Structures are given as structure tokens and as C-alpha cells.
């Protein structure tokens, strides 16, 4: 049996990674570039804003309120041991605004809207619809990818803000209404502990996550026909799975990197 050529394998893997990263950067740059140059971007972006933003609103409200309620419960039983239940408002609001709001919103949107982007564009790719656009001299990047990128850049921060707000209300439901913490103390702590930097940090994270999710999901669908592991409908399925997995990993990696810079 021949021994595997380890340096060649490592080199090949590295080259493939660099190639993929370069491809991803070019794809993102082209997608962003067409946002500013495509004349009919507004109508398409509004439509995508409805799909990515408005249609995800109920999910974000649901997850946000339960997330806040759980944080309220966990926070209360931890803080009560140190006689600091008055800090519950601070704990919930900072956790949500700095971390959980942007991350959970992005992961929820990846599952709901990102997977749909990958699947829809993937189906268009394997059924010749993207080729048809190119033949009609309609730039498929400008037609399909840029509106989704633009809509994500608007929807992610907005939905994150809604998630944060509803999460704080969820914490209020458990902390104030169920566990009888003083209502004034709850809101006083929020107002005095949350700074503009915290809000700005959450906003920056949500914008970066929007870029990651939209570009990864669109690219997976757009290049579904080039997959080596499968063809046809199976390739669309695998592209969708890859889109969700890669997006979620990227969200968590980017979150760590951004947090280390923002703190």
C-alpha cells in the first residue's frame, strides 16, 4: 500500500481553502458592487426585505420573548444567591444586546431565510433559469444576489433590535411579573448599564452576520451545479445544508473575533 503524500495533501487542501476564500471574497464584492450600480435594485430589495424581514418577524418575536424569559429565570436564581436580584435588568439587557440578540437572530434567520436563499437560487441554477437570465443579458448577480444582500443588511439589524427589545420584555415578564422584582429597579438598571457602545457593538455584529449569511447562502445556491458530491436536486439539498452549517459556524467565529475587538 502506498503511503499517503501528506505534504501534497496538506498543500492541496490549503490551495483549495485559499481558492474558496478568494472565490467567496470576489462573490461578495460583486454582490455588494451591484447594490450601487444596478438601476432596478430598489423594487427587488423591497421584495426580499418582505421575505427575509417581515416573514421572519413572528419567529424572532417568539424566540426573543422566550429567550428573555429564560434569561430572567436563570438570572434570578443565580443573582438571588448573591443578594443581587436588582441587577437582573442589567444582566438580561447586556446579554441580549451584546451577544444573544445578534447571534440568535442571525442563526434563526439562517435557518429560515438563508436556507430559502440557497434552495431558491440552487433550483434556479439547476433548471437553467440563471443561464436564461445571462442569455437575456440580465446580470444574474445583480438580479438574484445583490437584492438579498441589501435586504439582509437592512433586515438583520432591525430584527436584532426587535429581538433585544422583546427579550427585555420577556425578562420583565419572569423577573417582575412572576418573581416580583421591583419594576423600577429592573428598568433603572437597564438604563444605567447599557451604553451606546453596547448598542453599536450589537449593530456592527448584526451587519457582519448579515454579510456572512447572505453571501454564503447565495453563493452555495449559485454554485450548486459545480458541487462535486452530487448533481441535480441532491446538489440543491446539499448546497442548502452546507449554506446553513457554514453560516452558523461563521456567525460564531465572527462573533468571537468581533467581541474580542469590541470589548
Amino acid at each position, binding site marked *: 500500500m502506498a503511503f499517503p503524500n501528506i505534504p501534497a495533501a496538506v498543500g492541496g487542501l490549503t490551495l483549495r481553502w485559499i481558492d474558496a476564500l478568494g472565490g467567496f471574497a470576489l462573490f461578495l464584492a460583486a454582490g455588494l458592487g451591484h447594490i450601487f450600480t444596478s438601476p*432596478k435594485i430598489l423594487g427587488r430589495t423591497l421584495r426580499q426585505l418582505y421575505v427575509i424581514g417581515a416573514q421572519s418577524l413572528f419567529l424572532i418575536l417568539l424566540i426573543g420573548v422566550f429567550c428573555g424569559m429564560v434569561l430572567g429565570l436563570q438570572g434570578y436564581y443565580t443573582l438571588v444567591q448573591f443578594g443581587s436580584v436588582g441587577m437582573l435588568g442589567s444582566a438580561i439587557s447586556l446579554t441580549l444586546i451584546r451577544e444573544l440578540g445578534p447571534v440568535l437572530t442571525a442563526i434563526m434567520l439562517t435557518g429560515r431565510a438563508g436556507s430559502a436563499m440557497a434552495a431558491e437560487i440552487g*433550483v*434556479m441554477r439547476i*433548471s*437553467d*433559469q440563471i*443561464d*436564461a437570465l*445571462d*442569455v*437575456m*443579458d*440580465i446580470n444574474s448577480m445583480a*438580479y438574484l444576489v445583490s437584492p438579498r444582500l441589501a435586504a439582509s443588511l437592512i433586515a438583520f439589524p432591525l430584527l436584532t433590535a426587535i429581538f433585544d427589545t422583546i427579550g427585555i420584555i420577556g425578562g420583565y415578564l419572569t423577573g417582575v411579573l412572576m418573581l416580583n422584582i421591583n419594576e423600577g429597579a429592573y428598568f433603572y438598571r437597564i438604563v444605567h448599564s447599557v451604553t451606546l457602545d453596547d448598542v453599536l457593538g450589537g449593530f456592527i455584529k448584526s451587519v457582519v452576520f448579515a454579510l456572512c449569511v447572505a453571501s454564503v447562502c447565495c453563493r452555495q445556491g449559485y454554485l450548486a451545479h459545480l458541487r462535486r458530491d452530487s448533481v441535480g436536486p441532491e446538489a440543491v439539498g446539499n448546497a442548502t445544508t452546507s449554506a446553513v452549517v457554514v453560516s452558523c459556524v461563521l456567525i460564531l467565529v465572527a462573533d468571537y473575533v468581533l467581541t474580542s475587538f469590541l470589548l
Partner: protein
Amino acid sequence: METDHMTAGADGWDIVFRDLTAGYGNRAVLSGINAALPGGKVTVILGGSGCGKSTLLRHIIGLSRPIAGQILIGGHDFFNLPDKDFRRLRRRMGVLFQDGALLGALTLAQNVALPLTEHLNLPREVVRRAALRVLRMVELEDFADFYPNELSGGMRKRAGLARAIIAEPRILLCDEPTSGLDPITAARMDALLKAMHAFYPAMTVVVVSHDLASLDVIADHVLVLRDGAAVFNGPPDELKASSDPYLREFLRRNPGDAGNLAHTPPDPEVSAALARWLEK
């Protein structure tokens, strides 16, 4: 590049392949193709499955670049044109993809009008009128507000044809327009293509097909491919009179040796297991 002088009534554009080697990546599917498809005529590209018909079509419409050789369209070396001229030339092509390739999120009228809505600043009612006109030509006017998934395969193909002609192309390319259709619908599709060509006589029409029935109805010219090579290029009468054994077998739909069916009896163990399962 002088393309704008090609107005209605002018001569059709020839499509010429010079030593064309084409495929995917470095894998050649077609090699050494030398042929000319006459302008203003209907050319049918025939050949068995996997012989490279669709690959050739993808190269004519510029979706893939040749590995070697040239494709001349209307006298222009298509793949050596500057990007702007390449796109200008491709705008003059209309393509009917195999399943129509209609955008699922748009109605039929919106699909058909797409080239106009994307490139021209015409009032909405003018665009709608233009879409209805071509939908009427393919007998789909009543389905203008339907979505593609509400239509049959034949209707989607006709709608794809309507979209292909709305910008009045100089070259119309059709990928398997009759595949998957019942004989009557397929015959209607052929008749429609013929009528379309009569309406736009300067239009060069290229139809990729393996449907021999289409040959008699629509073809002015035939290119036959076999295993990635052009084995015939000429008028249909010449093809029918050809003494080439492959062409004669192809036209007669003679399958040749059907295999050793008699010498390959079923495995008795499998047959017994199947019999037990079927009796359950």
C-alpha cells in the same frame, strides 16, 4: 462591431464552427467540428444522447467557452469580441431552454416581458401589450397571469419560446423543443416553430433535437453529430439519400445489436427470492 444594421429583412446570420473543440473544463465533448449553419434557415442538430448537441448549443449562446477553435456568428469571432460587443451580439439571440427555464416567481406575462422590463424604460401597459402579443402567437394569451408551475410542460415550452422571441432576435436557438411532449403537442410545437420562422424569415433558427419527426416539418438544413464529431452537414434530402451506414441506421431508428438477451437468463436465486416476496 456593426450589428445594428441587421434590421428586419436583412440576410440572416450564419453560424460557422472552425476546428471547434468544446467541452467542460479540459474534457472535450466535441472535437474538430467544422461546419456552417446557414443564416435565415432552420437548422436541426441531430444526434444520439450524449453526442454533444446541448454542449454545442451552450457554446453558441456563449455560456461556455471553447477549448480550441472558433465560432463565427454573423461573421464575428464570438469569443474574441470585446466584452461589450460580446454582450451586444448575445442580446440578438433568443433561447428556448429544454423546460422553458421560466422564473417561478413571475407570471407568464412577467416572464415573457422580462427582457423588455429589464433593458427598456417603456410604460407598463406597453410592455404588457408586447407580452400579450407574443403569448398570442404561441396561443397562451389566456394564461398570461398564470405562474409556470400551473402550466403543463408543453405550455411552459411555448411560453419559453414567446420569451425567446419578444426581443425579435436574429438567432433563435431551441434546446429539445419537443422532448417529453406527446406526439400531437410535439407536432404543434414543430408547426409553431415553422410559423415563427415564416413570420421572421431573416431569423436563423437552430433546433437541437433527437426527434426525427421534426426533421421533415421544420428542417432546411441538418447537422448530425456522433460521438463528438460532425458526421453530416447539409440539406435534409441529402441526409435521407446518404449511404453512410450510421446515418441510415439513425434515420431508420435501427438499434443494431440489441444485446445478448437470450444468453442472460435471470439469476435463479434472485428469481426464487422474488417469487417468495411476491407471494407474501
